[in-house]
Every structure is written in structure tokens, then in C-alpha cells.
């Protein structure tokens, strides 16, 4: 009799030990409520000029926006100066400015300094609001190399050193890494080069084309017709796995497919590397779509993009992230 009680107790104890982890795994999913109200969207830009006065005006406009809002604001913006290439005739790296006159990165650096200066000055009596300004390039052409990444990081460092003499502004590097533009080797090399020289973090504000929308990917899933060699491991690395990398993902699709891709990439990081992603901001292109006369299925409003990402990330406690910003890109 005593023995059978002992056995039953042992069985009950063991069952409890077995069931508890299962319960906790079950509770990982579906714990979040509805997304809260989206934060204000901040303006990111495709740049066709590196003019200091133009960039000052853009920064001032953002500073004025924050000054006129109640309370303290924190924001993320990207200034996209196009591809970067090495000019042997100039002996330096140049930004293409999307059709504008190519400019040395030293000129771009001076323009980005002016953006921050404009923000700082035009926030006026608001001494608390802050913005993080990403000096952006992409992997579509030019020098997507280790050396270019290191050179770019040095220019961002110089912007950051200047920002430290004023206030309320911090610098970041940024790269629109899209899986249809280059293979992963080039993109990884650029990120590694950036990481060899950086004092400031780097945003990947690209896409996750071809990554699954309904399950945690294997390390080799993702990629495009042009570059099928991309895998989830690569996207994770250039977005989060590399020390300076932080995701500002494109959440353009109204179907929510891109938000789902990034949720599963974050879960990929959790399950394969013990670290889900922390997101800096969601990126939409609502205003750019208005400018070109409409985009079919890729024109999430900033609030829609932010909420889609919030809902997806917070539908699983392993990828939960509630504190990211919203930025919307446009043509200058």
C-alpha cells in the first residue's frame, strides 16, 4: 500500500516536470493583445543631393515637428544616398545619389552633419527629444565590399563625433540590403567591413525576399531568382547576427507577408543562435507610392506597417518586441 502511494507520487512528480515545459512552450504563442497605437512616422528619404542647406532644412523640419508635439519624441530616419563605388580617378568612394551628381562620401558626411544640426537647432526649447540618423547606401551596385564597408563606417564615425558636440542626435550607418540586388557574400563582406571600423550601429533597411511567411526557416531558405544563394542565416547575420547590425525592415506589403517573414527570421535567431532580433523601426513607402501614382499591394501606411510588425513579433513571446519606431520613405 505504502509502496503504491510512493509510486503514484513519483509518477505525479515526473508528470509535472514533463508537462510544465510543454505548458511554457504553449504559452509562448498567442500571448499578446492588440497592437497599441502606432508611434508617429518619421520621414526617410531617397536623396538626389548631398547639399548641406537642403539637409539642414530636412533636419530642421523634423526638429520643428518634434518641438510642436507634446512630450519627448524619439525617432529613427534613414537618408539613402544610393550605391557607393570606388572612383580610381578621384581616389575615393563616391555615392551615386540616384541620378544626382555623384559625390564623395566626405561630401555626404558633411550633409548628414547638417541634417543633425538642423534637428538640434530647430527643436529649440525641447531639449529631450532625440533622433537617430542613418546615413544610407545599398547593395545594388558599385563597391559592396569589406573595404567599402570599413570606409563607410569611418565616415559615419565622423558624423557621430560631430553630433557629440551638439546634442539630441546620434549617428548610424544604414544599408538597404535587398536579396534581389547582390548575393550574400558581398553583403556580408560589407557588413563585416563596417563592423571592423564602426563606433555606431548599422541599420539593415532591406528586405527578406523569398524567406518563408509561415514557418521558421531553415538556414538555407530565402533568396530571389537573381540571387537564390541567400539563406535565412545570411539575412539574420546582416540584420542582427553581425555585432553592428540592427533591422529596420521593409514592411511594404499590405498582405502582411513581410511582417511575417521578419517574425520568423527573428524566431530563426532565437532557435538557432539564442537571440531574437530587436527592431529599431518599421520602414514603409507609403508616401513614395503616392508620389509615383500608386503601388499595388506594397503601400502600407506607416501605421499599418508598424502594426503588422508589432502584431507578428508579439504573437510569440520568443520574438516579442514592443519598442520600435516607424519611418516612411519618400523621394526628396
Amino acid at each position, binding site marked *: 500500500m505504502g509502496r503504491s502511494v510512493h*509510486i503514484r507520487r*513519483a*509518477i505525479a512528480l*515526473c508528470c509535472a*516536470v*514533463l508537462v510544465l*515545459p510543454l505548458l511554457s512552450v504553449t504559452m509562448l504563442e498567442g500571448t499578446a493583445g492588440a497592437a497599441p497605437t502606432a508611434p508617429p512616422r518619421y520621414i526617410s528619404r531617397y536623396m*538626389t*543631393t548631398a*547639399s*548641406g*542647406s*537642403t539637409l*539642414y*532644412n530636412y533636419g*530642421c523640419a523634423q526638429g520643428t515637428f518634434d518641438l510642436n508635439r507634446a512630450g519627448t519624441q524619439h525617432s529613427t530616419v534613414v537618408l539613402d544616398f544610393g*550605391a557607393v563605388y570606388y572612383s580610381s580617378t578621384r581616389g575615393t568612394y563616391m555615392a*551615386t*545619389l*540616384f*541620378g*544626382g551628381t*555623384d*559625390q564623395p562620401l566626405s561630401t555626404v558626411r558633411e550633409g548628414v552633419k547638417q541634417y543633425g*544640426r538642423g534637428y*538640434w*537647432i*530647430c527643436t*529649440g526649447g525641447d531639449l529631450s527629444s*532625440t533622433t*537617430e540618423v542613418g546615413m544610407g547606401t*545599398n547593395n*545594388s*551596385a558599385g563597391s559592396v565590399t569589406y573595404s567599402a564597408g570599413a570606409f563607410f563606417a569611418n565616415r559615419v564615425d565622423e558624423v557621430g563625433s560631430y553630433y*557629440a558636440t*551638439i*546634442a539630441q*542626435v*546620434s549617428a548610424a550607418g544604414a544599408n538597404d540590403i*535587398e*536579396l534581389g*540586388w547582390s548575393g550574400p557574400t558581398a553583403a556580408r563582406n560589407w557588413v563585416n567591413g563596417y563592423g571592423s571600423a564602426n563606433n*555606431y*550601429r548599422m541599420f539593415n533597411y532591406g*528586405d527578406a*525576399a523569398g524567406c518563408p511567411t509561415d514557418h521558421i526557416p531553415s538556414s538555407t531558405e530565402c533568396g*530571389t*531568382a*537573381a540571387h537564390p544563394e541567400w539563406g535565412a542565416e545570411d539575412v539574420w547575420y546582416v540584420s542582427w547576427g553581425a555585432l*553592428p547590425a*540592427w533591422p529596420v525592415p521593409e514592411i511594404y506589403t499590405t498582405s502582411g507577408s513581410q511582417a511575417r517573414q521578419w517574425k520568423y527570421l527573428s524566431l530563426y535567431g*532565437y532557435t538557432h543562435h*539564442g*537571440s531574437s532580433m*530587436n527592431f529599431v523601426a518599421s520602414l514603409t513607402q507609403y508616401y513614395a507610392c503616392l*508620389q509615383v501614382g500608386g*503601388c499595388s499591394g*506594397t503601400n502600407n501606411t506607416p501605421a499599418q506597417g508598424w502594426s503588422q510588425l508589432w502584431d507578428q513579433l508579439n504573437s510569440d513571446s520568443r520574438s516579442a518586441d514592443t519598442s520600435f519606431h516607424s519611418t516612411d520613405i519618400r*523621394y*526628396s
Partner: protein
Amino acid sequence: MATRTRTDAHTRRLLVILAVATVLAGATVLAAVAASGGDTAFQAEKARQQNAAEHPAAGQLPKPDPALSRPAEQPEPPWPAGIFQDREAPMPASQFQAVNRWQGEVGNRRLAVYAGYQGTDPTRGLLLIFSYNDKSIDAQAKLIERPGDGVLRILSADGQVLTIGSDSGRQYRYDAATGQLS
């Protein structure tokens, strides 16, 4: 006696199985905890970066008067002109893949006409057109689609009139001054 021995053996087997299961479950929990913590040095560096971004260093300079602080305007460099065989365009790769572009000035506007195709469907030819003011800002944009024509490319330019060919063998004229494709 034999029955009792069988019962003991059965009990012992049951307990061994449960013990193994318990150890496995414990290991699972430990692995999950370790995974959620991740690499400590990695997490610490990420936290440092986030903190630095959210708390920018503050210099000692007083804020200048905005009215007196705007940098002097410099004239924009000349707008590049001609046909350029590069594939970069200010649009996501999934939406637009450029083949080449034409640039020139029409009146007081700076124009760029990109030819290419829809990023995930090469049968859908696209033209992406931008116009800017003399400061290379104040963008106006337009997207023209030619479904079923395949990839579009700019073949030549005669002043502001572009000849555009498609993979399907059709040719178009795009008048950059009027914005008409015919």
C-alpha cells in the same frame, strides 16, 4: 514470491523510464533558458549600442537661433545627362529592376527616366520617371507599365525624345518634354 519480484522489476523499469524522461525535460528547460539568454557578450554589446543610440552624447554648445543658423545655399552641381547603363533605381528590387536610364534637363526640371521591369515578373515592362527642380529636390514621379512586353530598355535619345525597346520586339517613343509614351 515470483509475482512480487515481477512487480518490483516492473516498478523499477517504470521509475527508470520516468527518471530518464525527467532528465530530458530538465535539459530541455535548461536549453530554452540558455537560448533566451543567448551569448552574454553579444547581448551586452547590443545593449550598449542601443543605449548609445537612445542617449546621444550632449556637447556644451548653446543652441543657436534657427533664423541665423541655416547654411548658405550652394548651387547644385550640373545634372548628369545621357544614357547610363547602370541598374540602380530608387525603388525596391522586388518592385522594379532597372536596365538603364536616361537623364537630361527639360525646361527648369531635371529628369531621370529608368527603363526596366517589374522585379518579380520580367514580362511586365516598366518606366520609372522622376523630375526634380534645380536643387535636385521637389520630386515628381510616375510609373508607366507595359504588361506583357517584357523588359524595357532605352535604345537611344534624340534630344528629349527617347526610343525604347522591349523584349517582345516592340518599340516606343517617350517624349520627356510631354511625358507621353507612344
